[in-house]
């Protein structure tokens, strides 16, 4: 188990920037996720850790060892590829044994280790199967077994769940988390799925356009996003452009140009938000934090869209100057119709102030 440190990493492809000035410090044993839309540079970063790309600038350390330009086969890394990259001409056992053979283990040791890891990923019966005789989920577990059997210092997972159907995805997610916790291996996980990232990670790095937007625990990222990109990328969010009217101790009053006035708390603001009187800022409000009925920050609006999902009722509500997404947990109450008027309240702790 080793830590990974990326220091001032920049990678350009020709003239195109892959990633820029990246600094990350991944702790030994940590489950660390790179999260972002496609093309944000997360896979590029992962491939630099794996050694398939060399950074244009900066250094990569495994613990204290500089591995920036070390060849991929000398890094002692386990990697699971998006399409699994299993060797199609080999059986399950041969696939898993490959890394051990490279490391010149004895036949006896190889067969013991392969059996053990096959048990770990619950593929006991499948040792002699060909790869094309396995389902997608089973292939995924072979790929995981193949990466884990070499007892890697670091495990890299490149969107390992993206080729599975929804149900398998959840099952495998739990499985991977279980294995990671059991083995305690430092894990770097790449995904564009924020639910996956939230559910599995110790810490998440949100990336966009090759730049790091925010690094933090799932709660930090969700509850205290640093900017509009993070707040809208992670979960659903209403982002309102508003002007600071007054700051009185902890209490902040903001209003939009149509006269909607809201009050929030100063401690709920991103370090990047200019919290001064008269400044224009953005306010992020999660749909699920808006309540129906009377309370703080009461607003009345007209319903323009209704969607019933079972778990919740999603409304779009038009208030002066903006349409809010509102999610009400379904408790069997009456469903409102398009055109109905609805009273909403927003607890002041649910407002989060952002800069750009």
């Amino acid at each position, binding site marked *: 188990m080793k830590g990974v440190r990326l220091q001032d990493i920049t990678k350009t492809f020709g003239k195109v920037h892959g990633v820029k000035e990246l600094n990350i410090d991944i702790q030994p044993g940590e489950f660390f996720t790179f999260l972002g839309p496609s093309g944000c540079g997360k896979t590029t970063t992962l491939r630099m850790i*794996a*050694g*398939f790309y*060399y950074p244009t600038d900066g250094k990569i350390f495994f613990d204290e*060892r*500089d*591995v*920036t*330009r*070390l*060849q*991929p*086969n*000398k*890094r*002692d*890394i*386990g*990697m699971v*590829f*998006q*399409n699994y*990259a*299993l*060797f*199609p*001409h080999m059986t399950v056992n041969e696939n898993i044994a*490959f*890394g051990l053979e*490279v*490391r010149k*283990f004895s036949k006896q040791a190889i067969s013991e280790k392969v059996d053990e890891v096959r048990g770990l990923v619950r593929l006991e019966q499948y040792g002699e199967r*060909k*790869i*094309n005789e396995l389902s997608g989920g089973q292939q995924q577990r072979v*790929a995981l077994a*193949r*990466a884990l059997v*070499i*007892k890697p210092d670091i495990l*890299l997972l490149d969107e390992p769940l993206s080729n599975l159907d929804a149900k398998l995805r959840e099952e495998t997610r739990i499985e991977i988390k279980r294995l990671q916790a059991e083995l305690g291996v430092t894990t770097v996980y790449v995904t564009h799925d924020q639910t996956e990232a939230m559910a599995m990670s110790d810490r998440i790095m949100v990336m966009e356009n090759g730049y790091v937007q925010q690094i933090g625990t799932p709660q930090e990222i969700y509850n205290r996003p640093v900017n509009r990109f993070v707040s809208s990328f992670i979960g659903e969010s209403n982002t309102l452009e508003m002007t600071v009217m007054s700051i009185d101790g902890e209490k902040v009053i903001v209003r939009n140009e149509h006269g909607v006035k809201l009050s929030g708390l100063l401690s709920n603001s991103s370090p990047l938000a200019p919290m001064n009187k008269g400044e224009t800022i953005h306010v992020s409000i999660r749909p699920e934090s808006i309540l129906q009925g009377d309370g703080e920050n009461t607003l009345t609006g007209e319903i323009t869209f209704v969607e019933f999902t079972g778990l919740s009722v999603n409304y779009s509500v038009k208030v002066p100057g903006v349409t809010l997404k509102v999610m009400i947990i379904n408790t069997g109450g009456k469903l409102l119709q398009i055109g109905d008027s609805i009273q909403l309240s927003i607890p002041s702790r649910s407002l989060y102030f952002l800069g750009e």
Partner: protein
Amino acid sequence: MKKQPFQSSQDSLWARITRSPSFIYVLISPLFLILFGYVIFPFYQSFIQSFGSETGLNNYKKFFSLESTANLEALWTSVYISVISVITCAIVGVLMAFLLERYDFPGRRVLSILVLVPMALPPLVGVLSFTFLYGESGIIPRGIQHLFNLEQVPFKLKGVWGVIVVHTFTMYTYFYLTASAAIKGLDPSLEEAATNLGASRLRIWRKVILPMLTPSIVAAALLVFMISMASYTAPLIFGVERTMTMQIYLSRTNGNLDMAATQSTILSFVSISFLIIMRWYQNKRNYQNLSKGISVHRSEVKSKAMKVVSIVLSVAGVIILLLPILTLILISLSVDGTWTTQVLPPAYTFDHYISLFTDERTWRPIWNSLQMGFVATLGNIIFGVAAAYAMVRLNFKGKTLLDILIMVPWALPGTVVAVNLIAAFSEENIFAFNQVLIGTFWILPLAYFIRHLPLVFRSTSASLMQMDQSIEEASRSLGAGWWMTFRKIVLPLTLTGILAGTLLAFVQSIGEFVASILIYSTSTMPLSVAIFQKMYAFKFGTACAYGVLQIVLILIVLTISERLSKGTAGSAI
């Protein structure tokens, strides 16, 4: 766990050299060196020679001179034959494709297998069997003459039309293959949609079907035109002297090497232009039909009269397709020198086949060809696999150049390749390790190597492209070095592709005639030249036995390749 002792990352000089971005050019330089030495250099030598020793543009003036028009006539005849061949091949090939893909009639299954028989005929052997069948003293004309007691044979295949008939028979398969692939991919619902919108049959053909087939038809047309321009065997046998390839051959045999070089430079210019047009067209061509799992609906021939007609036509088709091979087999069993004016050979023996393998003189050419084919193919494998890997997996400037340089020798007529080699290797030079290659064993394997350069390359790069790069990366990340990854992962996964190209290159080398006839030496006479000579010595039996042997070899290779391609489809994820 056990760990290898790590070197520090500021490691050895060698490691730093191999990581340098320009190291890749060191790796690919042998490929370019080979192409330079054996493709560009001979081409250049021939080009230089085409200007003659002191006379400057004289040869070109002579070529285009209006006083002695032999050369211009030859150019015209070549183009004329090629254009007609394209048209006849297109008609036969596309029609066959439609009949077999769209209609169900008695005899369809047999016909759809036999339709590819012409591919199994090596050019020389194919032309020979056509002269045996339809030539002046051929079986069919003579048979009809005897049957109806005619004064003269009713028709005979010779001259330009002979060439065109042979071209049609051997090359319609290019149209057939591309057209039937396109028709298979043609979604029947498009036609149904057009009918639904009120279009008539004719209109659907004009507005829907033909436009969708155009890309494949154009591609096949360019290919057939190129091959017809390069065609040498048919004009030779049918005595059409005024074609480009024949003029080159005649200049060479008359010792006028400068003129041969001029003619071949001009012919290469035509061929390479066509290669470029073809590549340009293939790149811009879009694959319109992406619907998957189309089930082609074959309309059944229902009426009684049509059924009879279709049976008769199928039987006729089967006979026409099989006759050349049957004829070869028949004549291979005839006693040499006995068949003169009779319809069929009068006396039969199995001796030719026995002596092929027992008589030193008849076995010699087979052995020569096997050896030379083996050497050439070995070169093709090494070069082809390396070039394919570089092309698909490495990133370097000059990829397009590499691709074109590999394709050029394939586009060049065999005659031109031979003339180029003569120009380059009649004297000592560095690429021949300071030897004169002409007249030695090595010149023919070199010619075969160059002519079949793209075969292994293409089949290997096709299977490499199918193989996901991340499979190699997975192997690297599991600790395997580059060489181990190549050996344990890349080679096993591309083996079928490599093998398919290898087999093809090998049989083609064994049957190669066009370049061989210009540069062989008597001590290493190849199989094809031996067939040609036996023909002229009226040893038809032996010649045809050689031919049948070649056909058997080709059939074996085709069967294995078919198996191989099925095997990959099964095991790929």
